[in-house]
């Protein structure tokens, strides 16, 4: 297997601009075309052998047209010009069947632009990586993990990388283009005998190859996370403090994200509707969405409305300062876009909870807990943005007198996001931007843990 040449098919930009012009000729008042060209590599290694190897490139196009304040979309993975022209024509025709929406329309051309190069989204080392190197990394990660005698089975290790070029062209004159890369390495493990298995995994995902955690570090974390769950107990139902590990804070913040999008607000699909400018949490809660962090996984120069991305303080010391909006939701709510358009909806950039000046080391948070649950994994969905209610299956470590006593499984945790934000007792120092949504360890004063 040899190295892939780093050459790219040209003309993505031409294709986008041609289709925008064509949409206009078909009678669209406004049009926007996005084209994506992606290359994917993925190898799964299990028990030392390659299980699957994928290499593929693909392109797709998306179109939005607006005519008489009516919107229609189209998309295709068939980039044949005849197909694309037909889809554009159909979209213009189909728009007529919709209803006029006074808020429909493309965003005006922004006067400022973010320099994509300064965001450091593309690592030229990734297209140059040899397949053998990538396979060897996966193999090495699993090999180190399986050296631990307590590990009884493997889900395998994976190395994946992506190279994506995105182009957006609009009738308002906006044309933007950028390239980005991702790579990831991870392993999943089981410990225990057949009827008493526990499982967990660890992975590292970065834009730059040099930033990936080493196979040793990934294997060590995956092993540690798995074996610490061995011989769990079920505990009686009770209300106790719950400490969220960073992996768990991530989903809690993901849920918060879903509750502060402008789309959810105008649809009244969130309990945080009507709370702008109000306190929604205590002073420990500061949440930021920042698209401009160089090299970070969620950074990008412009959103799918063609607006420049930026840093937005969403919650400042407990006060809800901003909803995250695309241009449409912002217009509906009488607000400004936060450059958060993602397809037809709203997406996060780097959405995180700040540790803040009073942050504590995670071990001190545990040491300061007389009795409680350290939440390490959850199972199931159980999140309702309309009410803020949470109820999920949980795995954790029981804390007694400031120390970890034993693992707990087959319990559920339940609570309400609104109350959790008010009852955050401590925030950890351990914020690590391992994904577009991330947070440090967080201690919540009380949740119901249901068991026996």
């Amino acid at each position, binding site marked *: 297997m040899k190295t892939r040449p780093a050459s790219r098919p040209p003309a993505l930009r031409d294709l986008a601009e041609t289709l925008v012009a064509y949409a206009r000729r078909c009678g669209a008042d406004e049009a926007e075309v996005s084209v994506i060209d992606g290359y994917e590599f993925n190898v799964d290694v*299990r028990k030392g*052998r390659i*299980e*699957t*190897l*994928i*290499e*593929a490139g*693909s*392109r*797709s196009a998306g179109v939005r047209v607006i005519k008489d304040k009516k*919107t*229609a*979309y*189209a*998309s*295709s*993975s*068939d*980039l044949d010009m005849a*197909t694309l022209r037909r*889809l554009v024509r159909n*979209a213009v025709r*189909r728009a007529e*069947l*919709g*209803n*006029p*929406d006074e808020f429909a329309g493309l965003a005006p051309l922004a006067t400022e632009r973010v320099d994509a190069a300064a965001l450091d989204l593309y690592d030229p080392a990734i297209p140059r990586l040899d397949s053998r190197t990538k396979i060897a990394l996966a193999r090495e990660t699993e090999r180190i993990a399986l050296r631990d005698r307590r590990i009884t*089975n493997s*889900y395998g290790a994976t190395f994946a990388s992506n190279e994506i070029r995105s182009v957006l062209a609009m009738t308002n004159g906006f044309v933007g283009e950028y390239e980005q890369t991702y790579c990831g390495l991870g392993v999943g493990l*089981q410990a*225990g005998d*057949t*009827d008493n298995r*526990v499982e967990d995994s660890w992975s590292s995902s970065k834009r730059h190859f040099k930033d990936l955690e080493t196979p040793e570090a990934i294997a060590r974390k995956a092993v540690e996370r798995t074996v610490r769950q061995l011989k769990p107990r*079920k505990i*009686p*139902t009770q209300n106790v403090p719950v400490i969220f590990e960073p992996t768990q804070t991530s989903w809690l913040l993901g849920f918060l994200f879903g509750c502060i999008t402008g789309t959810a607000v105008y*649809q*009244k*699909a969130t*309990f945080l509707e009507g709370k702008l400018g109000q306190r929604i949490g205590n002073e420990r809660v500061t949440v930021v969405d920042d698209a401009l962090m160089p090299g970070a996984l969620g950074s990008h120069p412009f959103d799918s409305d063609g607006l420049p991305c930026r840093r937005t303080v969403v919650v400042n010391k407990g006060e809800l300062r901003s909803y995250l909006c695309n241009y449409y939701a912002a217009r509906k709510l009488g607000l400004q876009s936060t450059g958060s358009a993602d397809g037809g909806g709203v997406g996060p950039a780097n959405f995180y909870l700040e540790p803040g000046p009073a942050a504590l080391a995670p071990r001190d948070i545990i040491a300061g807990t007389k009795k409680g649950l350290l939440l390490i994994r959850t*199972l*199931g*969905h*159980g999140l*309702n943005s*309309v*009410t803020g209610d949470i*109820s*999920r*299956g949980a795995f954790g470590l029981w804390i007694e007198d400031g120390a970890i006593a034993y693992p707990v499984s087959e*319990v*559920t945790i*339940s*609570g309400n996001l609104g109350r959790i934000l008010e009852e955050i007792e401590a925030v950890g120092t351990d914020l690590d931007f391992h994904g577009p949504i991330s947070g440090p360890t967080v201690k919540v004063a009380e949740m119901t843990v*249901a*068991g*026996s």
Partner: protein
Amino acid sequence: MRKPVKSTLQAPLPYVDHFGLSPADLRAVLGLALSSGGEFAEIFMEHRTYDFINMEEDIIKETAEAVSLGLGIRVIRGDRTGFGYTNDLSLDKVRKTALTAAAIARGTAPQAPPPPLRDRTRAASRYLVRRPVHAAPLREKIKLVREAYDAAKAHDPRIVKVKAHHSDSLLHICIANSEGLLVRDTRPMVKLVCVAISEKDGKRESGYWGGGGRVGMEYFRDVLTPRAIGEEAAREALLLLEAADAPAGEMPIVLAPGHSGVLIHEAVGHLLEADFTRKKTSIFWNKMGKRVGSELVTIYDDPTLPSFRGSYNVDDEGTPPRRTLLIEKGVVRGLLQDKLSSRLMGNAPLTGHGRRQDYSHWPVPRMANTYIGPGSDAPEDILRSVDRGFYVASLSGGQVEDSGKFTFSVSLGYLIEGGRLTAPVKQATLIGTNIDILKRIDRVGGDLAFGLQTGTCSKEGQDVPVTDGCPTLRIAKMTVGGRS
């Protein structure tokens, strides 16, 4: 179940029309895919068209049309799979994709050329469609969306927001493999759903309902009307306004028929997918022929149910599916197989459960329509047998891990007090371990029903449409994740 009638869907167009590749081209590409010593090669071609309508804020806000075209090529040697895909179907690009997939074999032995392809497309279809939705005028589909929307909105002044979505697609697939198989399928899919949000004294709740399947326009007249979809969503949203927090702790559970099939999907179905047994990660891997549940528990997966969302004429590897017995009277009897697991498990019988999300994914064993067979108890007797417990009326989903720990999320439940349903209760997750819970199923009703035809199952990043079913069931004891 309705009697099968001959489908009025148009016969699949010749593959050349969609994919521009003749059987001779396909055979040559398969030969190339085997050129590095692969033992099995397969080409999966897909052409999908998709329509979407969204209504919210009292207007038809947007419509969308999508086209998906591409092919995936897989090469197997032993336990190794090489896979490549492309949406550029020029012969040159397809040949390159074959060579990428072929590289996995890394052998030198040239194989004999693959046999000529023989078309084994079934004449009869399981998709009972009188008026194909994909061919219906958009205006008619918009009318369905409006009816659902208006019914929800008009149901009660406490309904403050409504969303209704329609989607339909028509998928043409063509599969060719190095065993000489050539098979095509044309699969329709429709889904109409409604979400209603209710509000009272500053408190809000949401309700959801929907339907569809591999059906025609007539479904929305004969089986489930858009009006019923809107009203049910509104009704659930209103009921939840009056609902209390769910209780917390272990208690007897009664599951309503239909929806509650999610329990079987999570607790049993996933862990009898053959890949998890082959890799010995599933708690069930060494349980074949062994008792894992009560005598009352018999479970099937049946991809052949006419027009169900999870049904198909052939699976995504070209295997005709069959109803598969998974658990018989509490004893493990079968697995859901795909070709790779079957090969690696000593050519275990294929069941037709190799499925994939689309051409850019390779097939893995998946469920289709999973259900627990009916028992003999009267549903009202089951309810009467519980003094204090929790009744699961509707479910929003679930999850399982290989250890057998599983959850399912209840969107609406009731307390059972003195053998009767009393107060409605809201959202709660239930958790258990499958080998404990299956043994605790101690009453099974005769009222087998299937859940909403809107379900999607995710596994390893691939989504496929599924349906679940079950009769009224009692579980002696299970943990309910409410609040105390």
